[in-house]
């Protein structure tokens, strides 16, 4: 099992750092899956996470100048690692002016992801900073825990409002209540509602638009005769929603959510070369 990668381009490095920062805000520990062409940051829906799950996919070619990987076996050419994304985020934080960043999987005293940052210096040789991030190697028999989640049979799918606006609304609401109701319909309308003993606050968004899901594969599209005005709603933990919104450092190209009434809300945030899916289950 081997892994080596190198980033030389500063813009790619910044982009990658931003992705890692977003992941670090969403999960304390997560799984990094490496394949020949892609990297995945995965959080599976265990009780410990509060039932949330995450699936983030990147094309390695868009970030790395060099990427070499050898999995556990030829027919299973993948590597699954458990790591603390905050460590990776910290390692990359001070690499913003680096000449190159190399990553390598090593096993000196224990498996580590070694991030070596080559920094410019006034002397003849560059300054090198190495960060050894401890990782856990996940054995093949557990890989099934980390399969890509399927898009649920949603009732409503709707584009999200401008994330910055949504974030500031949710942040204010967080001070008042622990849970928030997201409801939306197929007419491009979404409401964010909180209700406590003393106060109830609702923010209305209109003209958001509903993404067209292809009905060829049959299942993802909602019932064709669903009333456009009828709202699908789910009550979720407001902190989880706030974490998701706060973690976004760049505006996504597309941001939408799928609501399965009273069950789960599935968020999809797409950038040019990164896709992030986040599932927040409804509270009982």
């Amino acid at each position: 099992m081997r892994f080596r990668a190198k980033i030389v381009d500063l813009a790619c490095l910044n982009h990658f750092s931003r992705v890692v920062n977003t992941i670090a805000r969403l999960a304390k520990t997560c799984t990094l899956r490496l394949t020949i062409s892609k990297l995945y940051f995965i959080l599976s829906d265990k009780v410990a996470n509060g039932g949330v799950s995450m699936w983030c996919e990147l094309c390695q070619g868009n970030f790395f100048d060099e990427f070499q990987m050898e999995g556990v076996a030829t027919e299973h050419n993948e590597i699954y690692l458990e790591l603390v994304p905050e460590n990776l985020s910290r390692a990359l934080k001070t690499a913003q002016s680096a000449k190159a960043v190399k990553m390598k999987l090593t096993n000196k005293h224990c498996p580590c992801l070694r991030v070596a940052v080559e920094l410019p210096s006034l002397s003849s040789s560059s300054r090198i900073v190495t960060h050894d991030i401890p990782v856990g190697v996940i054995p093949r028999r557990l890989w099934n825990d980390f399969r890509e989640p399927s898009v649920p049979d949603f009732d409503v799918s709707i584009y999200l409002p401008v994330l910055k606006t949504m974030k500031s609304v949710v942040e204010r609401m967080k001070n008042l209540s622990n849970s928030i109701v997201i409801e939306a319909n197929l007419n491009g309308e979404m409401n964010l509602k909180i209700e406590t003993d003393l106060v109830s606050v609702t923010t209305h968004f209109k003209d958001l638009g509903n993404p067209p899901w292809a009905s060829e594969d049959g299942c993802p599209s909602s019932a064709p005769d669903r009333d456009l005005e009828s709202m699908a709603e789910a009550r979720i933990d407001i902190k989880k929603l706030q974490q998701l919104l706060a973690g976004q450092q760049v505006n996504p190209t597309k941001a939408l959510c799928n609501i399965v009434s009273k069950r789960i809300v599935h968020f999809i945030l797409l950038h040019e070369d990164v896709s992030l899916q986040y599932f927040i289950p409804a509270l009982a």
Partner: protein
Amino acid sequence: LSRIGDELYLEPTDSGLSLRSVNSSRSAFASFLFAPLFFQLYQLGEPQPFRCKVLMKSFLGVFRSLPSLEKTVGKCLILLKPSANRLVLQLHCKYGVTKTHNLAFQECERLQAVFDIQHCASSLCAPARVLAEAVVHFPQTLAEVTLGAGPGGKISLRNYVEDEMEPKKTMVTELWLAEDEFQRVAVTPGSSITFCLKEFRGLLTFAEASNLPLTIHYDVPGRPVVFTLDDAVLEVHLVLATLLDPKRDLQCPTANGGVSHLPLPSDDLTDDLESYMIAMETEEEPGVPPSPTFPLQTQGPTQSDPEEEEEEEEEEGAVPGTPPHKKFRSLFFGSVLTPGGPSLAPTQEVLAEDSDNDC
């Protein structure tokens, strides 16, 4: 100085005004000596010698907002009035405004850490900027850092991982500086020392602001490390206790001239995890719940020696992350500080009593 202790010791002498501070566990000491030339007027009075200490917070409060001070204050007068037990700080500002602050002081003995730069085996000198840039890669919360002389004349800085923290779960950051980044390097090859980062950062900030090169003098682990800044009118010393940990130093890869730590991207034979993986799978018992967390066990020799002498100094059940004051050998102080005496001003609250047992 405020990064170190809560009390500011003042000692006017023939060679200048000395400002000093020490931390509560006596593992950090700093002194700033301002030569008479630094001041517009420098006059020693009676009685001589005179030493006192004031509350750091009170003193700093006078100089609270530097930017506004620079704009409004013309001169600052510092006057010691032993008869009234007051240290007077008078700021002469624009538009004829004079602000006078009277700080209560407490007379005290000389505060002096015992250290000898001449007997330090190793020394390094670098522009403050280089060291500040090096330190930025370590998290703000990091307690201790290890400075080492590595192969090829390179100097390394590495975060220190205590036994109490799980060494296999902690991220290790290491920075290598080439010899030519320093103005002078005279180190014992393979030597290293571990000290607290917090106080060092404080000095670095000052050094960077005043654009002075920083010299580091150190000897063997356990003996204090001395950082100095020198200028025509200012002499600064920061003395920090270092971790007494000879066994760990022997296992330190830099002491072994460890090839594995060379920053060059040479092919590492140890990065093949396959054999590791197979061994792990056979150790795993059936019936273990399918959670992704994996019990990591080393196959190689364990890092820490269980029979180290330092065990007796370790606190039982120490909270991880607690600064290991007990592991640091306290700096030996030349004289005992009197625990309050007849000179105590009646209105002054006695702060932490100084006593011998306070180590």
